[in-house]
């Protein structure tokens, strides 16, 4: 892995030019194929680990054993795994919803009007620069005193601390890439700034919104630290459950593998659908000329 990566980095510009001129699609497919292999290989191992009987789990093999579905059954049927799944969905949904709802207008304001100047832009990132370890005790106390301990709301609120600013920051970069002409033209046609924003700028920024939303979902879906501290039996999320398989007596690789794959698949599905937003398609028609 190391030699391959270093090679790619060092020869980047020359390689790209050469590929485009001489190999075209074939070369692209090859590079993509290599990337896919590098990406998928660990997943294959996880898949194998989720199907191996306990006696085989310590052997470094990807095949050559009789697969068993027992571990999958144990995790899904023998533990409240489905509830953890639901909790993660709820927390993710709340986080994505609120962060997009709050971050999009804020990003627009930062990008177009420079509201608050550069200072404010950095200030909202303040919490991102501070470690979660520091916030855990205050969050816990806040959740305890508002009675929200062990609910999805507490976890979502903790997630919003760092996800909302990041979504905003990302969207700022995005709105800056959307040319001013769009709104100017709409306003010339009689829209107010706000309506121009809703009806012209937002659709043009769809790829950015899709990416930001996916990003927010992923950050929330994978967040373990806050969820660990603020959730109890009722609001436990998937990462907490996954981490739970790492016990004092060793990592339960089989069950953890099942949990990992179960957690990855929904996000994979969501990302597949969000792809549609990432593709320019008909939205590009808004750009006259």
């Amino acid at each position, binding site marked *: 892995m190391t030699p391959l990566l270093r090679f790619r980095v060092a020869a980047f510009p020359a390689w790209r030019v050469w590929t485009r001129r001489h190999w075209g699609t074939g070369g692209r497919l090859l590079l993509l194929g290599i990337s896919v292999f590098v990406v998928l290989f660990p997943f294959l191992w996880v898949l194998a680990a989720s199907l191996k009987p306990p*006696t085989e789990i310590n*052997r470094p093999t990807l095949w050559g054993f009789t697969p068993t579905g027992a571990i999958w059954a144990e995790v899904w049927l023998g533990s409240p795994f489905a509830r953890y799944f639901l909790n993660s969905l709820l927390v993710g949904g709340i986080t994505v919803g609120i962060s997009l709802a709050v971050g999009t207008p804020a990003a627009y304001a930062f990008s177009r009007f420079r509201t608050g100047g550069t200072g404010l832009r950095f200030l909202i990132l303040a919490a991102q620069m501070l470690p979660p370890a520091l916030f855990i005790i205050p969050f816990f*106390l806040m959740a305890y005193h508002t009675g929200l301990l062990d609910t999805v709301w507490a976890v979502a609120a903790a997630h919003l601390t760092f996800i909302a600013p990041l979504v905003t920051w990302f969207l700022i970069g995005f709105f800056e890439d959307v040319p001013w002409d769009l709104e100017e033209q709409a306003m010339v046609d009689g829209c107010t700034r706000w309506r121009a924003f809703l009806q012209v700028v937002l659709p043009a920024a769809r790829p950015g919104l899709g990416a930001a939303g996916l990003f927010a979902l992923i950050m929330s879906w994978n967040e373990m630290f806050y969820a*660990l*501290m603020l959730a*109890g039996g009722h609001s436990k999320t998937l990462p907490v459950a996954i981490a739970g398989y790492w016990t*004092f*007596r060793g*990592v339960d690789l089989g069950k953890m593998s099942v949990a990992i794959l179960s957690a990855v698949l929904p996000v994979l599905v969501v990302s597949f659908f969000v792809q549609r937003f990432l593709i320019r398609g008909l939205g590009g028609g808004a750009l006259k000329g």
Partner: protein
Amino acid sequence: MFRFIGRLLMALALIGLGLAGCRPATPAPVTLTIIMEQVPDTDVIQKLLPDFEKENPGIRVTIDAMPYDAMRDKILASFMAPKATYDVIIVDNPWMDEFVAGNFLEPLDSRIQTTPDYDFEDFVRPVREIGVVGGKVYGVPFYNYALGLIVRQDLFDDPAYREAYQKAYGQPLAPPTTLEEYVRIAQFFKEQSGGKIYGAAMQPQRGYKVFEEWKNWLYAAGGNLMDEKGNVILDRPEAVQALNLYIEMYQTAAPPNSLNWGFDEALRSMAAGESATMMSYNWMLPTLNNPQGPAGALAGKFALYEVPGGKAVLGTWHWAIPHNAPNKDASWRFISWVTSKAVEKQRVILGGAPVRVSAMKDPEVWQKGFGQAYYETVLKILEDAEPLARGPKAEEIIQIVGTELNAAVAGEKSAEQALKDAADQVRKIQGQ
């Protein structure tokens, strides 16, 4: 604009309080929430819970299981709330003194004395002493994790190996009782098997693990972290000798590139048949000998002995009641029930690690559990065992020593230098 914010905040605060009010008041019957780790011993307790709830109809028990670090962090957070979020907690031995110093735990002496037939002295002495701080009892033992030497008995019994060893060293091949023997036997296995079987699966991972393993070596060499008066004696010659032997073992007989190995890797190495011995928790033996367990075809071939030198590193988990727990009587009902002689016996039969002498000497336990030899060995291990560190800064001391030891094994420092640095830092912490 500020008025608006103020009103918004008030509104949110009211909603929050409203939600808090919507929470059901503590129901009668009382519900005890217990925080534990996700380990087989917890599963055993889960199995026994229905009996407790039958005997105590007013009390229900829920167990919140999670990994080690998370548990510690949540316990700390719970201490800071007006009312503890957990009614019963388990306390690892390095935390005990510190929690007591922070006034977090409820003293249990009067409760123990008023519980009939409790027999606190029945707990193995080194184990129960950990829960005694400043003369008062703050915790009662739950399960032990003392170290023992786990070996592939079939390799030691193998005629070819026995003959070769006898010829080379003039002594019979047997589980080692001194450090030099251990290193020699480990090197022997590696050579004789042509490098296929390593002498020992070691756990030199920085921090807790390496110190936990190496301190057995330190004990075997006649050394310790501190003497009875509390002076740090970690940099004495016997300690340097012990560390040099440990490093020699790592370099000549352990699996290569195992510098960051902890419990998991060592266990897997044994289970996969790649190592001949390992120092690990005594209750790993049943796991390894389980035909449906990780060892597969090798199940049944493992045996447990005391570590070389006979004195082992002791770790324990204790039950305790937080000072700010809302239902201390109910909490004690549970603790006294689960640690009573009768329930302890059942727990051990179901596979829990024992802490009571009576349980380890009970023929019924031998028969239904893992056999007489196993329990007798465990008792021997426990009777001469000592924890890694005691006192309020125990965890920090363990981490510091563990960092230096790992640096020595990694070859970044000489053994002597590492121990000197460790000793100096520990002295600084102790204010010496």
